[in-house]
């Protein structure tokens, strides 16, 4: 069913970019500034370097198994039963901490900053309906809409950066490396875990990319780099405007940054417009998650169509998004204690093992 659908490598780059920006643009500056203070940008750059290596690993894996999704790769490498069990565990857990968590972050943001009296369920249902619509219509449709929306996002983002840059104080970045390199590493790790490791799920849709010119892998890499550079710029600007302490204390520093815009007392109060940036990036992150998860489940259970799965998954999504974190403090500690090891397992150790296995097989074949 997948082989029929094709998206261009440019569309795939855009999808990857939006997926990487995803929730990172909203939550990462605060977390990374709490760990690395004013050196957060160095940590993020270190994270970018590590991310390039990790993405290259994902690409290598995809190249060794052309035309196959992650589930099918596991199938060939581990055999039908073991492979599908691993895939099921992977997909089920990812469903909980991927799309459900993203939807939770979004509705938390909305109820904290914009609509405090609106019940979280109605926001979630409304957003989930659009996500499910995208998933149901298929990858070609939402790739095209991503391609259409992307220039606007880019425009808003650039406007955001330019308008905020009037308030920057570069001295907030000093002193560089005040506490040495030690606090950099955990911060870099948390950056990699939010911005790069979940990208393993993109291996579920990479067979749909038109790969006649061998560009799918490059799209994965470039999209990841653009997405994380966008995030790094936001991190740096936030710290330059607010200083590390306020950034770390702020729940949504990017939104606080948008509130800061005031040019000549008339170009101001743009935060709701700027929030469009992350509504759209969160939308695509969620849609890609849900699409990949539906496809994966369909393949695990040998279904011909993934579409019947979409609605039940969506219902689960709405329910899970409300109960996945009991409160925001739990979420913060979960982000640092559980998310990091979890993504390391699925985004780093799993592909590493798979690479070793396929290398081993190739050796066996040759021998």
């Amino acid at each position, binding site marked *: 069913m997948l082989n029929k659908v094709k998206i261009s490598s440019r569309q795939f780059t855009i999808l990857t970019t939006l997926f990487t920006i995803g929730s990172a643009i909203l939550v990462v500056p605060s977390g990374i500034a709490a760990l690395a203070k004013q050196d957060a940008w160095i940590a993020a750059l270190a994270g970018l370097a590590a991310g390039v290596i990790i993405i290259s690993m994902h690409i290598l894996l995809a190249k060794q198994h052309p035309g196959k999704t992650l589930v099918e790769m596991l199938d060939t490498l581990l055999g039908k039963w073991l492979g599908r069990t691993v895939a099921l565990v992977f997909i089920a857990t990812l469903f909980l901490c991927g799309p459900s968590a993203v939807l939770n972050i979004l509705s938390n943001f909305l109820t904290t900053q914009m*609509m405090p*009296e609106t019940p979280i369920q109605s926001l979630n249902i409304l957003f989930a*309906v659009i996500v499910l619509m995208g998933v149901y219509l298929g990858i070609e449709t939402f790739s095209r809409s991503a391609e259409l929306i992307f220039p606007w996002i880019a425009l808003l983002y650039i406007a955001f950066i330019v308008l905020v840059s009037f308030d920057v104080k570069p*001295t907030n970045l000093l002193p560089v490396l005040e*506490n040495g390199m030690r606090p950099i590493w955990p911060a870099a790790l948390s950056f990699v875990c939010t911005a790069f490791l979940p990208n393993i799920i993109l291996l579920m849709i990479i067979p749909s990319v038109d790969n006649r010119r061998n560009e799918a892998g490059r799209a994965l890499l470039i999209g990841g780099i653009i997405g994380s550079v966008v995030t790094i710029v936001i991190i740096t600007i936030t710290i330059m405007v*607010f200083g590390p302490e306020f950034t770390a204390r702020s729940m949504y520093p990017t939104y606080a940054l948008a509130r800061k815009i005031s040019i000549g007392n008339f170009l101001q*109060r743009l935060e709701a417009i700027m929030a469009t940036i992350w509504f759209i990036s969160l939308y695509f992150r969620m849609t890609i998650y849900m699409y990949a998860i539906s496809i994966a489940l369909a393949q695990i259970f040998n279904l011909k169509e993934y579409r019947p799965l979409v609605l039940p998954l969506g219902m689960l999504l709405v329910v899970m998004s409300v109960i996945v974190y009991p409160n925001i403090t739990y979420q913060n500690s979960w982000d640092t204690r559980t998310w990091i090891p979890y993504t390391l397992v699925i985004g780093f150790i799993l592909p590493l093992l798979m690479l070793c296995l396929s290398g081993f097989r190739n050796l066996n074949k040759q021998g």
Partner: protein
Amino acid sequence: MIRRASCILLILVLIVSLTGCWSRHELNELAIAVGAGVDKKGDKYRLSIQVVDPGEVASKRGGTAASPVTLFTAEAETIFEAARKMTRTAPRKIYFSHLRMFVIDEALAKEGIGPVLDFLSRDHEFRTDFYIVVTKGSKAEEVLKIMTPLEDIPSNKLYFSLESSEKNWSPSLTVTLDELIQNFTLKGKQPVLTGLMITGNKKLGKTKRNIENIETYSRLQYSGLAAFKGDKLQGWLNDNQSRGYNYILGLVQGSVGHVPCDGEGKVVTEIIRTKTNMKGRIHQGQPAIDISVNIEGNVAEVSCRDLDLTKQSTLTEIEKKSEQKIKGFIESVIGKMQKEFKVDIFGFGEAIRRAHPAAWKSMKEDWEERYFPELPVTIKVDFKIRRLGTVSNSFLNELEE
């Protein structure tokens, strides 16, 4: 059947999409707060909110006799409770997003303003773009009761007059919430806030009569900066010291100052641009600060005879005198802080931290007790006169006595 089912589904979906109206706040249901003030009364905070009456502001044709703003007050043990308690007197819900000024009472500032500010940073309705000031010699509530000419809304008057006095006169300073909180968290820089006082007759100032006359009975006036240690008010700087402070931090965007001539009279220079460099260094194990201030100005007024502005040497002399004078402001404020208050409002500690993070670590704990009062500060002021205005020599030179 399918048609009917899909119709019902569509209706359900449409109902969900009405959630957009859930948190709606229509303009006619809101009381838009433009100014807020906090006083302390016993154990309780007294919160006063200046709310706009949109009908009075919008009416171009004179309006009624009603005041364009109204004041609500409530007392409670915490700020948020006081804000909500206000609904007992206010007909509408107070909406804080358009707040311009937040006024803190002097007595409260001496006890500590930290507990008041947490609510402002936590509640989602507050932006960070309003200015925070401290009253000097009066209560915050009284300040919000004064009627102002020209600007109908007194809080707007305060907002614009603080902005323009920072730009053109320079002993005042706009401070927003995020800047203030950032200064609380830095070990090597203590916050300052601009002081606000009521001049004239406070009683008449509260009435509409205040703006019916050409000369108002009572005015709101900014006067100097308040130095804080942590969140507690330590003391006041006078105008010249406040100006010195702004020179040290490079915050002067424009100002005016005079120097005496050789004979009688004065030369006034208008400062159009300043740039300050503050550098921390460690000299023989002890911290030291270098400040260099670069100023550009124009001659703006001459009231002395026999001043030959066409000669380069005259200009050099005015430059020298101005440099001395500004250096005097700077030295006076540093001296006051080092000897009297022992509060590092200049960020000297931060300058050391930026330059020598390792050395700073050993100093930061007793920075203000031990290092700051003894800190040697080298001040270099460079004043450049660029233009003379629309005339060269003053006609006063030709005027016969």
